[in-house]
């Protein structure tokens, strides 16, 4: 699968039809999916109809949009008209069908993109593993014996495998950035609240955001512009004040990430942000409380219908005392103000995205502070404190062909996404970051 903008350019110039692109994409998904466990539903009829409309628009001389004929998928928590929104759970398999597409899907459709599939996730987005009782475990295309990360693991894996040029996920505590890091693609968690959440199944309102996965900075920026309704290409500065995060961010880091950060910004000041451990703990508590509260009625009705991997966590979250939740929220307000002041003079702050390469499916644990911890809950050690601040964070893949992927976070000021894109584009041009296709997974063309 080629990159999104290359496909759109060919479709717009009539070198390819949207119908042909989508047909090949559907065939590839059918042929490959059981290997990855990334797809939950293939939307063949809808995709073919949308592709025909794109081709008809072009034939009639109308502008089909910047993503003309580009196939994509969404995490299984976006409303798709006519289908139940399951959030990866059997509990909602027979829910009433959505009456309209999620706003993000509507905007992408207007831009010519063609939705072809819904994608696997941890049930209700609660986890960093994409181990799902209903749909199975999503495998990492770089090594099928390893996890793809989560909770947007299906979205990351399908893009990393070259089966789709982009996908949408959601990120509450790192659910875009962690799987992006583990599968070696780009993933954006935008400034909190910046992209439309209408028609997206919630997890924890305090931190929920949606965002795209893609295989190039240019693709990611274009998708973000479409989702946001802006044109970030007008932002053209090339001077960056860069810093890196110290403290816990350097305690649990792969040596290659450390070396890459030093290489990207030699001499960049190290920011020892205060109270990072407290921030992660507060985020953990807020997420558990909001998730438990959201599902409390369903838990009361039939807790055993939940995925075994999430039900105990949700039940525990529902039992957190309200006063503790309020204390965590009070701390969050103070912490945010402090962090904004700390990073005020920096355009980009560098940090690891996940603390390690993808863990094994057979032993989903990772080393944190010298102890083996569950990947499901702890892969987000470096992303969770950033979500807590609401700042935008772009996960970028270090360019390391033939090796398991590792990612960095480029963290920006509020609404500083276009600066992050420019910085990432510079690193991509230098060959520091970039997607390394898994062996034998990417076809020659669309």
């Amino acid at each position, binding site marked *: 699968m080629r990159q999104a903008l290359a496909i759109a350019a060919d479709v717009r110039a009539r070198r390819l039809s949207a119908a042909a692109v989508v047909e090949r994409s559907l065939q590839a998904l059918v042929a490959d999916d059981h290997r990855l466990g990334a797809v939950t539903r293939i939307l063949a009829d809808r995709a073919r109809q949308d592709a025909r409309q794109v081709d008809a628009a072009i034939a009639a001389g109308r502008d089909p949009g910047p993503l003309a004929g580009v196939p994509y998928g969404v995490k299984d928590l976006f409303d798709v008209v006519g289908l139940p929104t399951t959030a990866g759970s059997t509990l909602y398999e027979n829910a009433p069908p959505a009456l309209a597409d999620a706003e993000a899907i509507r905007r992408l459709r207007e831009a010519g993109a063609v939705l072809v599939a819904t994608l696997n996730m941890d049930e209700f987005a609660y986890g960093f593993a994409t181990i799902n009782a209903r749909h199975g475990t999503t495998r990492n295309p770089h090594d099928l014996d390893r996890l793809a990360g989560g909770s947007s693991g299906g979205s990351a894996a399908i893009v990393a495998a070259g089966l789709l040029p982009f996908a949408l996920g959601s990120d509450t505590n790192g659910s875009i950035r962690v799987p992006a890091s583990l599968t070696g693609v780009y993933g954006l968690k935008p400034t909190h609240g910046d992209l439309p959440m209408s028609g997206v199944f919630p997890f924890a309102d305090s931190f929920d955001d949606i965002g795209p996965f893609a295989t190039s900075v240019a693709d990611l920026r274009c998708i973000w512009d479409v989702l946001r309704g802006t044109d970030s290409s007008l932002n053209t500065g090339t001077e960056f004040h860069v810093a890196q995060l110290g403290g816990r961010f350097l305690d649990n880091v792969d040596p290659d990430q450390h070396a890459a950060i030093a290489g990207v910004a030699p001499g960049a*000041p190290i920011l020892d942000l205060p109270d990072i451990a407290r921030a992660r703990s507060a985020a953990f508590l807020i997420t*558990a409380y909001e998730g438990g509260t959201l599902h409390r009625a369903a838990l009361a009705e039939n*807790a055993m219908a939940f995925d075994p991997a999430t039900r105990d*966590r949700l039940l525990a979250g*529902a039992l957190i005392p309200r006063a503790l939740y309020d204390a965590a929220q009070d701390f969050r307000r103070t912490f945010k103000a*402090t962090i904004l002041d700390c990073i005020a003079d920096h355009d980009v702050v560098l940090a690891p995205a996940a603390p390690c390469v993808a863990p094994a499916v057979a032993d989903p644990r990772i080393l944190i502070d010298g102890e083996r911890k569950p990947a499901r809950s702890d892969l987000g050690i470096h992303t969770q404190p950033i979500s807590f601040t609401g700042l935008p964070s772009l996960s970028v893949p270090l360019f390391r062909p033939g090796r398991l992927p590792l990612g960095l976070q480029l963290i920006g000021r509020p609404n500083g996404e276009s600066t992050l894109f420019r910085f990432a584009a510079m690193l991509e041009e230098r060959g520091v970051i970039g997607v390394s296709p898994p062996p034998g997974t990417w076809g020659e063309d669309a």
Partner: protein
Amino acid sequence: MLLGELQRLLRRLPFGRVSTPRSAPPVAPSDDDTVMPRTEAEIVQAAEILGLIVPDACMPGVVANLALLDTHAVILLGRPRRVGP
């Protein structure tokens, strides 16, 4: 004001490790309000108040998860918590 400006200048220096002030003193609501249910009896009681029944099959997992959440509560509140029922 002057201190803030100085910190900003320091952050721009190459090779500088910038120590930043702690963001906030530990939050301190009263112990009773924030204590997590930990024993099976406490969990059953807290669940009943919310209209929940914790199935037997879930109890070990709920106990383990509440223990984990309690470690986060200790970190957040910055003080030791009571141990045992």
